[in-house]
């Protein structure tokens, strides 16, 4: 209730004030029209008396002030015209001072004063000095601020600036500066006092009201910045020290923050750069609660934009040692503001970092220094729990990554991992992801094992379980994504020199082996392939390089690979391991390392036998084995026999008949390698095919028994296709009559099937027949070969 009344009352008071102004304005206008000076002064003083109110908030007071201001403009016009009032300006200057009330008196004095300066009958500086001194008489904060703001307003175009008509004859730009500085100082004092003189319980309200008035104070700094004659020298020797002195001495948080920011915004960057020490020197002297991080951040941002505007400016930055000054200042500020939360300190360093990244991108030592400073702050404290601070640390760590396309640059920063150590596990991982993404984005190859070492140290949050966090708690999707990223990352670790590359691989291995079963299945495959890639590169050289001191030989790599794949046993992930063994075997084959290849196959078979129990997995595995084995050419007869025998054996032992059948006919390829010097054992091919036919038959009968229908003839058609393949490849065992027999068999089957109401035709079979037909008609050798087959 009381508050609402307060607002209503204020409206009422404002309305009364406006009415008072309007009333007196009416008589004032009449007096002005009649050129009656005495009356004009009387009514203008009465009109201005309305501004003596203490009842209005700054906002409302401003409204009143603006109305009075408009009237004062008219009065000023009148004062300017001596013919109208017949009073010399000097007399007028005295006359208005007869007013009994101080506030109207001073408004009138300022108004006449501005005319006085314009008349040039007295030096501008004397009038200005007098006005600014006399205004001391108003000590009420709001009234004083508005009065002085009026003074600033009317004097603005009358300062003895360089090139201004009021310059010269002893009026120098220094007088203008002095004037504005003094007005600024007094205004700021009043502004600050508003807070101190108010009741404590209204602190917030007062702060809000004060904030509304801040631009009145800041305007003075703006005026200073607009004075032509304020060159660097004047700024450095007079303006800045005086302004800072006032800012420091006023000991007011709001004012200090606002004015520091004002300085930074209104004066040219060039000045800031040249006076950095002075400006920064003031910072630690400010109140401990001033939001310096924002102030300094803006300063640094401005300076970096400035540096970016022209490359020629860089020497200046170096000359004034901008970086070290900023860095020192930040250190001091953090020291001075003991209550500054850690997030504040980190934010400051983030700003400094982006400054140095933009201005001195070549100075990695600077970046490292900044990070080092952060480590200092973070050290002795537990892991960060404050999410804002964490965010800032992430920003801090991300900045160099964004800047340097070459991620490796960041890796040379010794403090980088030390900062990361202070992140909590979750953020640490996020950061690691950022690093990886950055690397991926820029496609920068990480090319030495040392760097890899550092890199993996950095992303260790992804590589292994960190203390206290178990992988069980993690969201599976996130985890998969993280691990996939790590997997991707491995492909970007590359060096042309095989020796170094091997070192890289070893390093990576050293790290990922600590990752535990959940991670290995993600991380092992890329590492294996990376190693295999290296093997392929060395493939040709192995024999060429003489001497035993070659560190990177395929043989060695294969040994390593063996270890790596073996690690999957703890996962366990036999299917994956099997695939990898087979890959290795193939690589070994290409390197002509029979024993190695054989060993890999052995491993694969062992896995098949001991670990792979699932029938579907078995099917997949067996086909992989067959496929791989088929391409092997390194094996001697004996080894090959052993292996093919094993493979065929496994095939026939699959659980489902169709699977058996398919595996067995696939085995036929093990005896027929369609290469120049590949094995071509037609007989054993036929054996396999016949065997598969038998299995197909058995499958058909089983189906008949269990389901009452023999089912589709797909298996037969598939086998037929195998026959056709070998027939075309010239396997002597596969003759046209054998094919004819099979075709007839299928047809038979299909007829009996259709009799029982099954599908009349099989599209697979139909197209196979069409193919045969096609081959027959094609003519030539192939046509002749097909000739005997009757459809």
């Amino acid at each position, binding site marked *: 209730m009381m508050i609402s009344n307060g607002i209503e009352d204020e409206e009422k008071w404002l309305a009364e004030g406006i009415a008072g102004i309007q009333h007196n304005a009416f008589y004032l206008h009449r007096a002005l029209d009649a050129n009656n000076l005495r009356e004009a002064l009387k009514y203008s003083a009465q009109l201005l008396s309305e501004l003596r109110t203490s009842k209005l908030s700054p906002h409302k007071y401003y409204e009143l002030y603006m109305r009075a201001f408009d009237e004062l403009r008219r009065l000023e016009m009148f004062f300017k015209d001596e013919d109208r009032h017949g009073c010399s300006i000097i007399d007028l200057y005295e006359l208005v*001072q007869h007013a*009994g009330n101080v506030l109207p008196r001073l408004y009138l004095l300022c108004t006449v004063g501005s005319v006085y300066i314009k008349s040039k009958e007295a030096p501008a500086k004397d009038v200005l000095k007098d006005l600014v*001194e*006399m205004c001391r008489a108003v*000590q*009420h904060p709001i009234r*004083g601020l508005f009065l002085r703001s009026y003074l600033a307003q009317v004097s603005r175009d009358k300062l003895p600036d360089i090139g201004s008509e009021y310059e010269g004859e002893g009026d120098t730009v220094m007088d203008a500066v002095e004037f504005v500085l003094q007005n600024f100082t007094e205004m700021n004092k009043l502004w600050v006092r508003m807070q101190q003189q108010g009741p404590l319980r209204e602190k917030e309200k007062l702060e809000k009201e004060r904030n509304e008035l801040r631009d009145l104070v800041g305007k003075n700094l703006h005026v200073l910045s607009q004075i032509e004659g304020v060159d660097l020298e004047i700024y450095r020797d007079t303006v800045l020290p005086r302004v800072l002195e006032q800012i420091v001495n006023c000991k007011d948080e709001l004012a200090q923050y606002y004015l520091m920011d004002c300085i930074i915004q209104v004066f040219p960057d060039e000045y800031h750069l040249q006076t950095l020490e002075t400006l920064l020197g003031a910072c630690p002297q400010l109140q401990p609660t001033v939001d310096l991080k924002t102030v300094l951040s803006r300063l640094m941002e401005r300076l970096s934009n400035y540096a970016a505007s022209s490359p020629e400016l860089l020497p200046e930055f170096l000359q004034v040692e901008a970086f070290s000054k900023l860095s020192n200042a930040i250190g001091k500020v953090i020291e001075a503001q003991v209550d500054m939360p850690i997030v504040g300190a980190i934010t400051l360093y983030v700003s400094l970092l982006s400054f140095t990244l933009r201005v001195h991108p070549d100075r990695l030592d600077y970046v490292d220094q900044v990070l080092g400073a952060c480590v200092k702050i973070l050290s002795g404290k537990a892991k960060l729990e404050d999410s804002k601070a964490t965010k800032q640390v992430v920003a801090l760590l991300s900045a160099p990554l964004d800047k340097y396309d070459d991620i490796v640059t960041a890796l040379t920063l010794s403090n980088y991992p030390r900062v990361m150590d202070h992140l909590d596990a979750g953020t640490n991982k996020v950061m690691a992801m950022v690093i990886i993404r950055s690397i991926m984005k820029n496609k920068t190859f990480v090319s030495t094992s040392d760097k890899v070492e550092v890199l993996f140290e950095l992303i260790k949050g992804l590589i292994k379980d960190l203390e206290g966090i178990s992988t069980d708690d993690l969201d599976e999707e996130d985890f998969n994504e993280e691990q996939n990223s790590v997997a991707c990352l491995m492909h970007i670790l590359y060096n042309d020199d095989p020796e170094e590359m091997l070192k890289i691989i070893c390093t990576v291995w050293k790290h990922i082996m600590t990752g535990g079963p959940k991670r290995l299945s993600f991380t092992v495959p890329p590492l294996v392939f990376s190693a295999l890639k290296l093997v392929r590169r060395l493939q040709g050289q192995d024999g060429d390089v003489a001497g035993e001191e070659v560190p990177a030989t395929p043989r060695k790599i294969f040994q390593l690979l063996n270890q790596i794949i073996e690690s999957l046993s703890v996962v366990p992930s036999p299917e994956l391991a099997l695939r990898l063994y087979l890959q290795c075997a193939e690589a070994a084959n290409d390197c002509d390392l029979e024993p190695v290849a054989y060993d890999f196959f052995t491993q694969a078979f062992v896995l098949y036998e001991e670990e792979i129990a699932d029938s579907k997995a078995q099917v997949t595995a067996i086909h992989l084995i067959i496929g791989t084995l088929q391409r092997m050419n390194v094996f001697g007869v004996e080894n090959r026999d052993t292996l093919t025998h094993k493979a065929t054996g496994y095939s026939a032992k699959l659980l489902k008949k169709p699977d058996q059948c398919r595996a067995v006919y696939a085995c036929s390829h093990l005896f027929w390698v369609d290469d120049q010097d590949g094995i071509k054992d037609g007989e054993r091919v036929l054996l396999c095919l016949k065997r598969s036919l038998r299995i197909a038959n058995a499958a058909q009968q089983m189906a008949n028994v269990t389901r009452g229908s023999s089912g589709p003839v797909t298996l037969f058609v598939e086998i037929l296709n195998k026959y056709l393949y070998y027939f075309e490849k010239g396997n002597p065992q596969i003759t046209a009559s054998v094919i004819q027999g099979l075709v007839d068999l299928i047809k038979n089957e299909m007829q009996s099937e259709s009799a029982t109401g099954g599908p009349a035709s099989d599209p697979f079979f139909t197209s196979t027949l069409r193919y045969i037909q096609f081959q027959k008609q094609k003519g030539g050798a192939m046509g002749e070969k097909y000739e005997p087959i009757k459809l």
Partner: protein
Amino acid sequence: MNFIIGAFKPACHISITFSDAKSRKQVPLKKENGQTIMVPLFQSQENITGKISVEPISGKKVEHNGIKVELLGQIEMYFDKGNFYDFTSLVRELDVPGEIYERKTFPFEFSTVEMPYETYNGVNVRLRYVLKVTISRGYAGSITEYQDFVVRNYSPPPSINNSIKMEVGIEDCLHIEFEYNKSKYHLKDVILGKIYFLLVRIKIKNMDLEIRRRESTGSGPNTHVETETLAKFELMDGAPVRGESIPIRLFLSPYELTPTYRNINNKFSVKYYLNLVLVDEEDRRYFKQQEITMYRLGETS
């Protein structure tokens, strides 16, 4: 006596003219009846000369026992109204007893008249100068005519004129130091100075500088003192803090001041004071009064 005069029309018309009436400066003078008239201005040691003409009403003769003109300096106390104390009284005989048939003019002259006191119109006292023409008649009663004039005396600027500087205060509450640039001001002077706040523990609302006139009349146990505030000039608006210094600039010309009069003929004194008044938010007044000496500075010619 008056009723006799009232019964008849005045037998003659008397007019008093000063010889330099055209060139002499005229100043306003407030009469008892409230009217303001313009009268000539003199200063001490001047010659007061002129003519007095007596013109009988047409066709009548005026018989008299002698005509005289007096220059009177009078002090009138209001508690004793109508009773004039003449501190100066000079007489010039104009005519021996006889008869006047037609307009007759008499020159008169008072040379280098000592008029040490200024014309003054106060609250309880009045000091005036007047020329009084008396045509003495026997039983018919005397005919008199008065002509007021104003006397102002000028002083040179004082050779010693120190500033007034003082530190005053209330313990642990308010300490100020004020300074007025002079202790002696002429009537069109400007008071300059400043107030310096050494300690402020009260919430000051505003600060005024008052010019006060203290008129004391009578003497001994019958002394009567009257104080008037002639000017109230706001020096400061709002509450200052420690270390603030507030300027003073007060033009005296708009105010009707007189010089300081000390013990005029043992009858009265007029003194001036500057009163510095601080008003706090509860409208309590804190003040410090300082006497200043006012003097009339010779107008530069």
